[in-house]
């Protein structure tokens, strides 16, 4: 079986990539995708540790994460669409109505 550290490292790398994506890309959709990346990285960590511990809890958590991700993306994309309709942009740095 693959050593746990490798799995965790992989998930850490993917997570970091997701973080970077959220920060460096100004396209909301891409930021959104990066969030999904992070979620999956965490899922990977759950699965890996769960299978090492021989407990199903990790997989159950992943199941829930998927469900929540589905809900989140549904609502989030709805928000993006309505935002686009109102503001004609998907760029985070142009959606700064809340600035000082």
């Amino acid at each position: 079986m693959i050593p746990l550290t490798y799995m965790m490292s992989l998930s850490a790398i993917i997570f970091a990539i997701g973080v970077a994506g959220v920060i460096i890309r100004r396209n909301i959709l891409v930021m959104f995708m990066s969030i999904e990346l992070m979620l999956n990285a965490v899922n990977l960590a759950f699965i890996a540790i769960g299978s090492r511990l021989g407990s199903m809890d990790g997989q159950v958590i992943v199941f829930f994460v998927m469900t929540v991700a589905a809900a989140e993306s549904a609502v989030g994309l709805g928000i993006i669409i309505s935002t686009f309709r109102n503001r004609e942009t998907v760029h985070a740095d142009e959606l700064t109505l809340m600035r000082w």
Partner: protein
Amino acid sequence: MPPFLYIFLGALAIVSALGVIVQRNPIHSLLSLISTLLTIAILFIGENAVVVGFLQIIVYAGAIMILFLFVIWLLNLQVESGPTGHLALKAFGSLGAALLVTELFFLLAPPHLQVKFTQEPAGYGSLASLAGKLFTDYLVAFEVTSLLLLAAVVGSIALARRLPVVVEEPQPRVVEKIAS
């Protein structure tokens, strides 16, 4: 799972993950994301999380990503001309991410990451075992999640539907007021 497969999949996952954030074309980003998801799903299956792996493909790759695809089409996003972000943010963001990953490496190095290894029971990762957990220990969470999904459906519909255009009544003129 044989190591070479792990290395191959890991490399693929990382590359496509990078693809997600560097591609200028949202569709390409999406495709890279999908490939990442599929790779991760295969890794799941390699970790004996068969059901969850397939669920990952069905739910993520099969449904959520389609949603993204539709949204991209709906907003008619083309290749991004011009900067994909602010330079400072790019620099510091990448730097921060790199720092994070290094920290995590140190944190996840063997001495600090102790996991009591236990042999997986029979039928580990099967649908039965998953369902067993779901409907006993996590029943409440399960039900709540279903409610959450319902709320999400309603909310997204309410968000995305076009509001009917309100045609306001023309004010009756003074003359008519007097007349009536």
